[in-house]
């Protein structure tokens, strides 16, 4: 991360002196977004996913999460499933990394078994939803290459429109187009283009609130799959910061007792 901060300093300097290329400007926006979201430390969340099929039939998932910010690498997270009832107590531990594969363990409560799982399924659906694992894992600057497209307005707010191209292996996307709010440096909308370069999904993020006078978090996410007609609403019911989590809250022992 430090390398990137240094790089951004050089970019900001060179940007002042010379005209930036669209790639440099895109990277500078991503670096600034990352800088503004540093220092949150840890967070605990409760959320609810509503899965809809093309006929509109709904199914819900209740999830709790804990996350720990890790400097110079991806974050650690623990996800616990409360519903559907048959998977209650199933928990998922993830150590994300920028470019090398994430480390992931799944806890199966019926067998009391912790299973190390492959993290190569980036494009697979999370809990049968329209969110892929790569959509919900921690967003690190080095995971993408960037390109600034234009300044624009979105729902009356000033935005940067930029493209980003996944640099990690096994992504389901060739390209993402993001509408980044100029005040919050958070995405309001992201379009996902599949491996055949056709529009696959659109994500919109709503009801942003600022926490600890610094960190913007959305209250609701809407993901629509244009190819299947399915959609998923992800409602963040609560965010809690400064929980005093340590790496001990994110090991295989804590995974086994996660509830």
């Amino acid at each position, binding site marked *: 991360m430090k390398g990137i901060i240094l790089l951004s300093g050089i970019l900001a300097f060179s940007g002042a002196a010379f005209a930036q290329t669209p790639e440099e400007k895109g990277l500078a926006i991503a670096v600034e977004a990352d800088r503004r979201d540093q220092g949150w430390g840890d967070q605990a969340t409760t959320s609810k996913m509503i899965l809809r099929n093309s006929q509109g039939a709904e199914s819900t998932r209740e999830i709790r999460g804990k996350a720990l910010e890790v400097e110079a690498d991806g974050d650690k997270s623990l996800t616990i499933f409360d519903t559907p009832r*048959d998977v209650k107590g199933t928990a998922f531990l993830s150590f994300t990394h920028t470019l090398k594969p994430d480390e992931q363990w799944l806890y199966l409560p019926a067998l009391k078994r912790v299973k190390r799982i492959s993290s190569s399924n980036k494009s697979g659906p999370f809990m049968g939803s329209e969110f892929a694992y790569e959509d919900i894992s921690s967003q690190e600057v080095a995971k993408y290459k960037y390109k600034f497209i234009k300044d624009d307005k979105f729902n009356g707010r000033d935005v940067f429109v930029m493209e980003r191209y996944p640099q990690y292996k096994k992504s389901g996307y060739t390209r993402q187009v993001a509408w980044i709010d100029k005040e919050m440096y958070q995405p309001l909308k992201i379009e996902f283009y599949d491996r055949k370069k056709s529009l696959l999904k659109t994500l919109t993020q709503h009801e942003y609130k600022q926490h600890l006078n610094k960190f913007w978090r959305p209250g609701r996410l809407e993901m629509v799959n244009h190819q299947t007609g399915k959609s998923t609403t992800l409602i963040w019911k609560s965010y809690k910061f400064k929980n005093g989590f340590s790496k001990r809250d994110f090991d295989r022992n804590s995974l086994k007792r996660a509830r």
Partner: protein
Amino acid sequence: MKKVISLALLICSSSLWVNSVWSNEWSGNINFEAKHFSNDALSSSQFNDYASVSIQPEWFHEWDGGKQLFTFVPFARWDQRDDERTHSDIRELSWLKVFKSSELRVGVRKVFWGVSESQHLVDVINQTDLVENMDGEDKLGQPMINYALIQDWGTLDLFVLPYFRERTFPGIDGRLRTTLHVDTDNPVYESSDKENHIDYAVRWSHSIGDWDIGLSYFDGTSRDPSFTWPALDADGNLSLRPIYYLMQQTAIDLQATKEAWLWKVEAINRRVNNESYNAATAGFEYTLNGVFETASDIGIVMEYLYDDRKALASTPFEDDLMLGLRWTKNDVHDTSVLLGVIADLDDSSRLYSLEASRRLGESWKLNIEARVFNGITDTTSPLYSFRQDDFIQLELGYYF
């Protein structure tokens, strides 16, 4: 056993009274099961159709800011025909306390060790609840004191196991049993302390990059019984008595996670009844994501099962190959199908299995399980007595 339970209860109750903040919750499931055997049984006391119901509620309470946990999971099953399968158990009755770099877990619990799918050689803490399922994955609650030291160099688990649980076996009316049923009322023990023999175990486990490793040692009563020569049970029927020998087992389990490949090894050395033998399971699991332009995954599992006692082994899997194909639809219903076969490399015996499951609505789950015993001609194989026991089972579970 009673001592450990009362100790756990005492610690819990004393802590509970001090705390006024409650975060208790109930959950659990009720399962309805129907099992059909396609061939007539070897014994006239057995049937072709069996119905059964089980219930497993769970009460969980957390306090002290999540640093103390109490769990109670009773289990009960009623079986239409087999009195031995009609049984109950305390799956869990435990108190757990989290310290900065350690955890203390006291009471009746279940512990899983290992990485492989076809058999679980390393996993020796809990007794198998064999009447539940012949696959051996259902376990009886084990009373224990378990202290885990959690450090940067890994987790060191120390176990004191003060009470031994006998394996459950199908009764004379049940299927999937030995030709002579097992007389569970008259077990034989090597130790004069019988079921009160205190067992000890230690395990070190760690993750280093792509590698997950476990080393373990167990000293106590073997969970796998041998059998006596046929003897008469209380009803005057010829039966087998289980013999529980003392054993010392040293084991290693290892998994390397290399992108979509999981490479796995479990190996044990066991000293029991004046002999020493080695056994191992080794293989891989490979997952293809997003097959046929869908969200589906296909997993391929292959494992080699070995026991150096060969034909004298107490297990049927002494030189066998397991092949499995797992289809995960990744849909809203969590639909999945697992097809498998364990083939003996020295003769024609094949054990085929099918496991499929799907959620119905938000609270119900349908499971289908089928097994076929094919080409079992070796009269000395432990599978020989199952040769007529091909079955299909439907299970409908309600989760609350």
